[in-house]
């Protein structure tokens, strides 16, 4: 299952940072997921909550921020946020908002970024 390995990589990243910063608890984790990254945020959250049992991350609030798709149109040279057809995020069709072309290079929106964490530590 796709989301499981990604969730495990996220947990490993968070716990590594928590340990390096001598955290006693992880309170909050913010993850950026691109709008067309092939990850379902709800499945990801569910698996994160399973994987963190018994770790410093247990009970932490998981915040998932969706990153909109940005493109460079190969036809009209538009650069910026793309039009998407509004279907499920992982089936989104990316279009140029200026000329409607689908021949676009995606420059943003494929992230799976562990952005930051909020921790509790001894002063």
């Amino acid at each position, binding site marked *: *299952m*796709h989301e*499981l*390995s*990604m969730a495990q*990589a*996220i947990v490993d*990243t*968070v716990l590594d*940072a*928590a340990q390096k*910063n001598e*955290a*006693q608890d992880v*309170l909050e984790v913010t993850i*950026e997921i*691109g709008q*067309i*990254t*092939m990850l379902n945020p709800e499945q990801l959250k569910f698996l994160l909550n399973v994987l963190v049992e018994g770790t410093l991350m247990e009970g932490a609030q998981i915040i998932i921020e969706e990153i909109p798709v940005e493109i460079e149109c*190969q036809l009209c040279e538009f650069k910026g946020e793309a039009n998407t057809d509004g279907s499920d995020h*992982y*089936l*989104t*069709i*990316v279009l140029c908002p200026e000329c409607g*072309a*689908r*021949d676009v290079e995606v420059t943003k929106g*494929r*992230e*799976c*970024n*562990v*952005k*930051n*964490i*909020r*921790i*509790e*530590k*001894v*002063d």
Partner: protein
Amino acid sequence: MHKIADVEIQHDIMVANRKLARNNQRLLDQNGIFAVDVLGAIGSGKTSLIETLIDHLDHKVGVIAGDVISKYDAGRFESHNVPVVGLNTGKECHLDAHLVKHALEDMPLEDIDLLFIENVGNLICPVDFELGSHLRMVVISVSEGDDTVEKHPLIFQDADLVVINKVDLAEAVGASVEKMVNDVKELNPGVKVITSSIKMGKGLDEIISTIESYVL
């Protein structure tokens, strides 16, 4: 006293995979090897196509056979007397650059100049994971239904070459090959689309000449 601290991490797992993919491609380039990532639906004919290409291409071919259980496809490739590395993904639905890095360690790079990397049969999960290949070939067949392209747009937007296989069965399964070709072209106007029946030999010459044109 306890205090609350915010720690910036900014570790993008996708970027980490892309870095490994770039390293893989560097290793392939250093050894003069052209690599083709073969993606596509389950049962679309990926393995059969690679087997046929091994026999028809004038290259020293190697194959990385990626699958949930890779021994079945790996065995088929081995019978063509080429170096094969089986890559079991276990529960995973796609190959990633890290797995391919390890497979390359087991591949006799000095003995090959063309590498096929057969991905797990899946039109969704492999999309995000570059492997370090030079060419992404997507293989689908009419028997998956002629709406398969519009249902899985991203894999076609990223493809360099699309093969629509088993066109000899189109009438029997009620699929429009023309619709499938048009759907791919709408998503990715510049991509080369070849309709084929590997079993009947249709489209094979065009697939070979297209791959050769990229290798050169």
